[in-house]
């Protein structure tokens, strides 16, 4: 159960949104995009100071004991303000893996460090570039050797530790790996929405048995990925809210052929559809988060529906935001293209629409009941 009340969450949202509006404007963000890190360590320190980084970390580890609902509030604001910081990999994935699967020593070492902004962690899981070559852990004296490759490691360049999903005797296991360990190679690039991302090679990397997360099994990972999918939905909802707001403002102010372009019925209906899509994505996302948080048996169904619908909405809102802006929407200087590219990425993270729909279709074919109380 979350330590937060509904009112707490509202205050949290207000405070993050205020930060985004006042301190994370376009110029600030443009400077971050040009920086080597690709995100802002000073903003990260501020988030820590404001308590956001510990929002879903237990109080005994220096956090404030929230959970997915509070992370979602944060992610929604991150979408709204197009924040560049590693909230998803560090707070949702890595802290989630440690909270759910780490031992006391691992938690004590890393969770306070995350909450205080002293450590950035990420998770390298299903290989993004070649699922034919998983990372294999082979036992050695007192530890293991890791070999293999993982792609699409978000914020790999900044990570103090990388939690790597490996195959150990045919089972899933998670290991803490230092990026500076011998045998670790990282190659860096950016995602389509400008986030740092890396490919990771592990070549006979020696890890100790104590680097293994004892609870890091397939079921933990499934839960993490469900939570991450919803965090991404929440971020998409925030980005759609902002994109719709920008587009609506543009429709009201831009004139062409002697009228505001928002006076054209086709533009009006398009904007209505964008608004409905966002509304639907928001409702199902929050319903799914509520279900996960309260242990509702519908949680998996609702999560799949949330990711599928918010992905569909993200596509519609992203594409039509550009279209309704016309030429100005194609420029890097204007914000709407950044929302578009962020929505492009969010659509695909933790399962694109089709993947979730196929699961949902399979469950539905098997039976409609059982998900209601």
């Amino acid at each position, binding site marked *: 159960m979350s330590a937060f009340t*509904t009112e707490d969450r509202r205050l949290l949202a207000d405070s993050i949104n205020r930060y985004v509006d006042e301190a994370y404007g376009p110029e600030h963000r443009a400077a971050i995009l040009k920086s080597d890190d690709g995100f802002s360590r000073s903003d990260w320190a501020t988030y820590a100071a404001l308590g956001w980084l510990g929002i879903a970390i237990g109080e005994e580890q220096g956090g404030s004991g929230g959970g997915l609902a509070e992370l979602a509030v944060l992610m929604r604001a991150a979408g709204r303000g197009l924040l560049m910081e590693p909230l998803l990999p560090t707070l949702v994935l890595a802290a989630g893996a440690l909270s759910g699967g780490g031992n006391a020593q691992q938690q004590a070492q890393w969770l306070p460090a995350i909450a205080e902004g002293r450590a950035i962690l990420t998770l390298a899981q299903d290989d993004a570039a070649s699922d034919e070559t998983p990372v294999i852990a082979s036992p050695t004296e007192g530890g293991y050797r890791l070999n293999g490759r993982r792609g699409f490691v978000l914020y790999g360049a900044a990570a103090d530790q990388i939690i790597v999903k490996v195959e150990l005797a045919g089972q899933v296991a998670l290991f803490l790996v230092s990026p500076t360990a011998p045998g670790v190679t990282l190659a860096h690039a950016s995602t389509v929405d400008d986030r740092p991302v890396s490919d990771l090679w592990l070549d006979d990397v020696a890890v100790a048995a104590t680097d293994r997360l004892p609870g890091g099994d397939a079921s933990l990972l499934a839960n993490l990925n469900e939570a991450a999918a919803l965090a991404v939905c929440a971020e998409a909802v925030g980005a759609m809210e902002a994109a719709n707001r920008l587009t*609506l403002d543009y429709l009201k102010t831009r004139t062409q052929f002697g009228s505001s372009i928002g006076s054209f019925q086709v533009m*009006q209906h398009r904007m209505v559809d964008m608004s409905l899509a966002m509304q639907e*994505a928001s409702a*199902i996302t*929050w319903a799914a988060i509520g279900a996960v948080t309260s242990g509702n048996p519908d949680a998996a*169904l609702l999560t799949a529906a949330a990711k599928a619908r918010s992905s569909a909405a993200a596509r519609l809102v992203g594409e039509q935001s550009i279209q309704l802006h016309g030429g100005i929407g194609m420029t890097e200087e204007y914000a709407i293209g950044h929302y578009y590219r962020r929505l492009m990425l969010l659509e695909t993270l933790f399962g694109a629409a089709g993947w979730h729909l196929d699961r949902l279709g399979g469950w539905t074919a098997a039976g409609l009941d059982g998900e209601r*109380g």
Partner: protein
Amino acid sequence: MLGIDLMRDPAIQAFRGDVRRFCETALPGDIRAKVLAGQHLEKQDYVRWQKILFDKGWIVGHWPRQYGGQDWTPLQRAIFDDETSKAGAPWLTPFGVCYAGPVIYTFGSPAQKDRFLPGIRSTDTWWCQGYSEPGAGSDLANIKTRAVRDGDHYVVNGQKTWTTMAQWADMMFTLVRTSSDGKPQNGISFLLIDMNSPGVTVRPIQSIDKCHHLNEVFLDDVRVPADNLVGEEGRGWTYAKFLLNNERLLGAEVGKSTRLLQQLRQTLLDIQNGGQALADDPHWRRRLGELRARLLALEAVCNEYLAAAEAGSTPGLEVSALKIMGSELIQGLTGAMVDALAVKGLVYQTPALDAGWQAAPVGLPQAPGMIREHLHDRATTIYGGTNEIQRNILAKAVLGL
């Protein structure tokens, strides 16, 4: 409170369980079978079910207690609608209990309440709605049917159309023009017309599903007692809008879509093609998932509105969203049904729509009912203000465009 939390509130869950169990035991099997097969319902089928609900005290559960209701909240009403629809109950014909009744108890005179409400509650009086006209589909301000005061009567002339079930009706509530001055909306009055009055002619309209739900109603010098005017002359538009607001939270028809999804699922399991059930085809599986996702999302949107209503806020024009999403989902579901049937050929054996029909089916036995539903439901994006008009409303009232 989030909608999903609200839905798991023990009192709410208990109410839902009560309705569900009641439907399981009290809904006559023959009526349920007709509904699920998409067969024709007779007037008596509707009346029988509505009297069962009346006996239970639920037919006007959403009315205030002083008028015989249960003071249900919008959420309770939505749950009632949801569960009865899913159970395969007939459509709760709304003309009396949802439309005429609330307008009468809100704006009518004490005499009108005494005279009309009992028959509405018991379904002893069948009502129909006289709004649309040939020249005014979604554009109600353009109403041309005239009511001219003549002593203690109005003399009504004009024509109404798309009048659902008028062929069974004892009474019709109408919007009529009593003045041509000022804004068109301001000359409209709300008048109750006895369908047995001289000068009332009902002409059936067959619809594209080959069924007869709709009618034209011709009004030729119909003399209507002035006592049948509800509220004030010229305020009919206001009453009609009040009524619309009342109904908007049910616009999504989640219960109906749930029933359609159940039927689609069963059909996909039943129809074999190339040695496998359609439900095992990857394309059908994804499409089923897509429809399920839309239904879950629509429920989530509804629950947010209901949670807000439960917290005391009155829904505004933004609720047009429910009509748009709900009607488009219904069409998505019936379209999928027809596509599933099409694998074996779209045979529309209309005699099989009669419950008494006994011969062997030609083609798939599910086909007639599902094709009928599909054809009929092309109207869901038209009636009650087309979806184009709903989008105009949202653009203007919600987005400020």
